[in-house]
């Protein structure tokens, strides 16, 4: 489904990604873990062409692309196959919840308006916001905004959805509703790559865990293995710190 090879990216002297490769199969939920500054978000942004990688390739749904490309056409083709959920939701401020979800259909894919409204309404109902269709983003709570963000991603029927720390900007009491929504998608077989700090989510929902440190993937594998028998000392330390937190929270 998605296969990423040897991604490099520097910002000035700061070498953020130093050759990252991984694969995602159909229906996989890949959790990308790692401390702040380990390059997780940059990796995801390179795959959506929000950043131009210095080196690297990716194959998505049978289409091979050079991640360094500046071609508007190729970039757009990839973006039409993917969807992105942002840390800060980034809903269109001037559009209602319904319009937010519809725009990717009516404008980007020229879907018929009535059909688009149907799809968008269904997507919003799925994330539990059927009653908020004509609310503007600023009238919604953070958790609701992020769920609209997820509905917006779902509506365009992407091959894969990238989540960039979808719960990091939320008040703790709102994290649950968003994670539950993502869990629901996982159950339905949506292919996702989720950059997250939610360890329990990664452990319970992910089919694969990637641990990044210093711009490289230190370890990747099934969550059972990574969480119980991490091979790398640094992974062990990182997990110990977070899982401790997690135990306290319970």
């Amino acid at each position, binding site marked *: 489904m998605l296969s990423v090879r040897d991604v490099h990216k520097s910002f000035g002297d700061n070498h953020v990604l130093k050759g990252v490769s991984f694969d995602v199969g159909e229906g996989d939920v890949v959790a990308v873990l790692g401390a702040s500054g380990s390059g997780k978000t940059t990796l995801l942004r390179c795959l*959506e*062409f*929000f950043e131009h990688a210095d080196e690297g390739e990716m194959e998505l749904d049978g289409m091979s692309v050079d991640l360094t490309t500046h071609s*508007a056409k190729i970039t*757009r083709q990839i*973006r*039409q196959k*993917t*969807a*992105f959920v*942002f840390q*800060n939701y*980034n*809903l*269109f*401020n*001037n*559009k209602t919840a319904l319009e937010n979800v519809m*725009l*990717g259909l009516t*404008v*980007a*894919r020229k879907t018929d308006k009535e059909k688009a409204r149907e799809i968008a309404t269904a997507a919003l109902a799925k994330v539990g916001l059927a*009653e*908020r269709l*004509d*609310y*503007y*983003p*600023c*009238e*919604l*709570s*953070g958790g*609701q*905004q992020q769920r609209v963000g997820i509905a*917006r*991603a779902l509506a*365009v029927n992407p091959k894969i959805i990238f989540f960039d720390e979808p719960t990091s900007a939320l008040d703790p009491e709102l994290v649950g509703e968003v994670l539950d929504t993502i869990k629901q998608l996982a159950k339905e077989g949506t292919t996702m790559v989720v950059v997250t700090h939610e360890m329990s989510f990664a452990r319970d929902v992910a089919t694969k865990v990637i641990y990044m440190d210093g711009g490289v993937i230190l370890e990747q594998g099934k969550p059972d293995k990574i969480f119980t028998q991490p091979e790398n000392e640094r992974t062990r330390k990182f997990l110990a710190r977070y899982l401790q937190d997690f135990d306290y929270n319970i």
Partner: protein
Amino acid sequence: MQKISIKKIIYYFTKSVPALGVTFAYVIISMIFGTLIGALIYRMKTSKYRIFRIIASLYVTIVRCTPSLVMLFLVFYGLPLLAGGELGEWLEELPILTFVCITFSVFIGASSSELIRAALEAVAKGQKEAGLSVGMSSLQTFVHVLLPQMLRNATPNIGNTVILLIKEGALAYTIGLRDVLGQAYYLSGREMNAYAVSMYIALTLIYWPLTIILERLFASLEHALTPWERKNRHKDISVGPAVGECNI
């Protein structure tokens, strides 16, 4: 000592009001061309080529440092001289309104480049990325997401500029433009300025309501572009009040 004559006030008022057409003409034309120049200057300022950035900031600095009256004279007398020859003669034949429009377009070009920058930067980068992420092109994202928000953010500034322009434009009488003020001065001159005070009162009575109406107009435009701030939205919906805070 001059006497204030109601009759004369009414006379100047009614005879000058029709010249509002000229005022509106240069305001609208200058706003349009000024905004185009401003967009160009903004584009040059953000260009990756240094030469364009230098030209753009030079333009803004020079225009900002020139009093509008000086600029008006420079354009009116200087442009035909600078062009010289047949082109110069052709320029001299153009209506005065043309020179006024050029002058104010140049001015608005400088200020609106800043205005465009502010309006664009206020619309966060995330909005653009979100538009791209759902598969829209840059242009589609600009038209459907960025531009409406920019317009809404810029409306108060556009309103201020229009009002400023109407007042600044009064200077154009010095090169003979018959806008409201020019017309009133012309009529007053024919009477040896015997009723100048009445003439000024008549002008005030034109400018005040005009400015107030424009202010109201732009306020309601901003309101229309900000649907989420309307009161009593969702009153009929049973799910309770909106939870978010609307202060984008």
